[in-house]
């Protein structure tokens, strides 16, 4: 993945093609224009030179003075750095630089260029002029051909183009650097703004500073301020709504949580009143009735006093709390007969800072849910994992879809059951969170759900 670029790097990257393409285009255009201008200049100069020497050459041809013609063109060609050929309608009569071309048949060479009378070959500009002079023979049928080396010309064009490229590249670079530094300066307030926004998120407020001279940034800042104050208001509203919701939740939870002890109470009373039950069991039931009644009273009192449900953590035996809560759940669901509950405790865990009542309530809820969901087996395991305490309640039921778990934990899931697994789970979640722990859901080794309380 590409690293994100700084503003300067971004600008540099975006401007780079222009830094090359523009000077190159400028150089190319200049080269073409220069080359063409030089061609025109050379062409005119060569043609006019050829016309200038034409009368004298005409005399030399007329008087058939080959040697003088040869000497003349050799010396002027040498001086001008060109090659001169004199030819008639068939062959070369004289040549300034080669003693081997004289007398050979004429070849048509070079190609034309638009707007220029001179032809161009690979190495030369070739200007041809008909030889004549005032008062001379009407038709000498001879021509002067001047070969001007193009190397010099193209060298000149190359030099000029290179200079233009270099200069424009330099200017553009300076310009781009200037633009980038100005742009970078102009986004300094953005950094400040970023800083302000950070402060806003940290402290909820920010003081206006001196960057407010850029309209767009001012707008952003104002938008953030407005949004921030709106968010605050929404937050307050949300808190109020949440408070209400929690109150309702607490009632629901209380009602729900009362269901199990009351059911247990009912069961105990049944035992007391039922004939044929051994006396010791009846005595235990009586004792439990008193305990359950006390628990109910406590819960009601607690709910009365603080609907938000607080916990009161004390050093209590965790194993005992779990055992009690499991037993309570079991008793609450005596109609479910064929479920075996396996309990495993870790004897190394002695006392643990927790609210035994509230934690018991959370565990009861989870165990009840497990028994209801199970096909025949529920497992409650307490153990120490590293520094954490784990209380895992597993069943062999059908389990819950992973994506539904978080909904149930938040109390927003919809249960198929009458009393609703939703409230039980969310209540347990609430209690565990108050203990600073969390509930992890996973597939149980028994095949159903496993809710693992970690504290």
């Amino acid at each position: 993945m590409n690293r994100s670029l700084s503003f300067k790097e971004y600008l540099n990257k975006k401007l780079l093609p222009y830094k090359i393409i523009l000077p190159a285009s400028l150089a190319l255009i200049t080269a073409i224009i220069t080359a063409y201008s030089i061609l025109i200049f050379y062409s005119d100069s060569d043609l006019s030179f050829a016309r200038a020497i034409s009368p004298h050459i005409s005399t030399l041809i007329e008087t058939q003075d080959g040697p003088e013609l040869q000497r003349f063109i050799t010396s002027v060609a040498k001086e001008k750095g060109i090659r001169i050929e004199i030819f008639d309608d068939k062959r070369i009569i004289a040549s300034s630089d080669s003693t081997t071309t004289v007398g050979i048949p004429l070849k048509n060479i070079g190609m034309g260029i638009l707007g220029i009378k001179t032809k161009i070959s690979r190495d030369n500009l070739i200007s041809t002029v008909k030889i004549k002079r005032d008062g001379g023979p009407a038709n000498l049928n001879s021509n002067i051909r001047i070969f001007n080396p193009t190397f010099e010309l193209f060298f000149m064009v190359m030099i000029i183009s290179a200079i233009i490229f270099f200069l424009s590249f330099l200017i553009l670079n300076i310009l781009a650097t200037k633009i980038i530094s100005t742009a970078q300066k102009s986004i300094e307030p953005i950094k400040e703004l970023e800083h302000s926004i950070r402060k806003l998120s940290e402290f909820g407020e920010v003081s206006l500073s001196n960057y407010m001279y850029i309209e767009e940034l001012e707008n952003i800042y104002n938008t953030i301020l407005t949004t921030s104050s709106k968010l605050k208001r929404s937050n307050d509203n949300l808190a109020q709504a949440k408070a209400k919701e929690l109150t309702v939740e607490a009632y629901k939870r209380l009602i729900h949580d009362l269901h199990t002890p009351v059911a247990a109470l009912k069961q105990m009373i049944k035992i007391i009143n039922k004939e044929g039950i051994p006396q010791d069991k009846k005595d235990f039931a009586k004792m439990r009735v008193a305990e359950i009644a006390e628990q109910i009273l406590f819960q009601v009192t607690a709910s009365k006093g603080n609907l938000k449900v607080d916990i009161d953590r004390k050093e209590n035996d965790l194993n005992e709390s779990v055992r009690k809560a499991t037993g309570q759940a079991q008793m609450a669901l005596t109609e479910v007969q064929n479920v075996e509950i396996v309990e495993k405790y870790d004897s190394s865990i002695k006392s643990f800072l927790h609210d035994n009542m509230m934690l018991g309530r959370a565990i009861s809820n989870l165990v009840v849910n497990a028994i209801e969901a199970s096909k025949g087996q529920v497992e409650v395991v307490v153990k120490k994992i590293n520094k954490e305490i784990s209380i895992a309640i597993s069943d062999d039921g059908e389990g819950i879809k992973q994506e539904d778990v978080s909904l149930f934990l938040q109390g927003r899931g919809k249960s198929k059951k009458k009393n609703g697994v939703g409230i039980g789970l969310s209540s347990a979640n609430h209690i565990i969170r108050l203990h600073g722990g969390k509930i992890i859901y996973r597939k149980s080794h028994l095949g159903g759900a496993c809710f693992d309380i970690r504290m």
Partner: protein
Amino acid sequence: MKKIVLGTTFTALVLIGGFYHQQTKHVTSYVEIPYIKAVYSKPVTYDPAQMNDGASLIFSELVYEGLLRFTETYGIQAGIAKSWETSKDGKTLTFILKNNAKFHNGDKITAFDVVASLSRMVAPESKVFKYYDMILGASDYHSGISKSVSGIKASNDHTVTIELKNPFPPILYVLAGGTAKVLPAKLLRTKDFFKNPIGSGPFSVAKIDKIDIELRRFENYHGKKPHIKSMILRAVDQTTAMQEAKEGKMHDLSSWPLSGLEDVFKEGQDFSTVVADTWIIGFNTRIAPLNDIKVRKALKQSIDSEKFRKTFYPSAAQANGYVPTGFPGYIKNESPIQQEEIPKHSPITITIPEGLDKTNEIATFFETTLKKKGWKIKTEVLSWPEMMKRYEDKTLQTFLVSMIVDYPDTEFLLNNFASSNPDNYSGIKDKLIDSLLTSARGLQDRVKRFDVYKKLANRIETLALSANLFHSKPHYWIHKCVKGFKPNLLAVAYIDYRKVSFDNSCLEEASK
């Protein structure tokens, strides 16, 4: 004007082969191998004042040096002279000599050497007097009236002045030419000087034997020294030369104007160029029946030049007149043929030089074609030195030669027909020609002078003094490993061998 090229030699092939073998055996470095140039004949003479043939001029340009030299394109450049100027009236030329110019024996060249050497050109025994006759006092000296040439003087050690009878700018060409060479004055009179000649040119003579002239680079040469260390001028006939070139034993065949179609061109460099020459069958009016203008005219017309050219020298240019292409007096268009009746005539002999690639075929060509037309014709083939001797004796009746322009001015070409010129091969004495020549010399106006030359050229054609065969457009064959060779538009003799060098990597490659 000189007769040239068609020389052949006293060649003994076995000797050449043997010699070559001996030479190459000791070659250790390619840089040091001799540059071998084939020539159609050994120089007829080593004395510039006697030079009248191409082979001698080739030697002269390599070994001797004059005040001036020719460039490849008819121009003039410095030789021994550092600078020169012409007086306002055009009659006096002053030359300042280079300080570092030395002879091959190490002696410094002085103005007195120049005076002595140039005076020899107009001495009674000189064969080149005709080029120098406009120098003041030249005629008196030539005819023995005076003991020195009043027009040639040394003002001091390094300044020479030459005075002319009349302004005559082409004198500079003469001074740049193959005969105006400066030789050491004090040695000139020694008996055997020309057996082992000493000059101040880029090469000195190392050895002269029957076939080869071995030259060595002159290390104290006043100008830019040649690249090649040694050079051999080897006298062979054309067929042998081409064979040896094919075998890589020869580097330069520029003595022969080849057509470019020869086998030898399959490998090596081909320099096509023009030279100012006309190949002719010269008619000697001294010998009957050519003293009869009717015979000359009829013979001229009977010789089918175009057929000859197309058969033997197809790449050459058609010759319609005596003056070569590009010179005033050149006749551009063919004159209409009015077939004259062949008059009664005594037998005529055409002399053909030995050593041409197709000497015998050429002889047969003339004999058959002319006999067919009713001529009593006979041909003879002579060796080059023998032919040259008879040419000078004016005993050749009709003969095949190439007339080269010695200097880039028609004056020197046409004054060959002056009745006073001892070198006049035709022996014609025509008042009109003489008067036109005189009037041309006196004319400064280029156009007017040209008109005179035109008249002269036409007059020469009218008098039927030659059958003009063709103008050479030679192809020079040069070994593929030779660099810097540049043809000279004026003549083969003026090719600048100071610039020629070997491509060593090419030589190494070739030896593999």
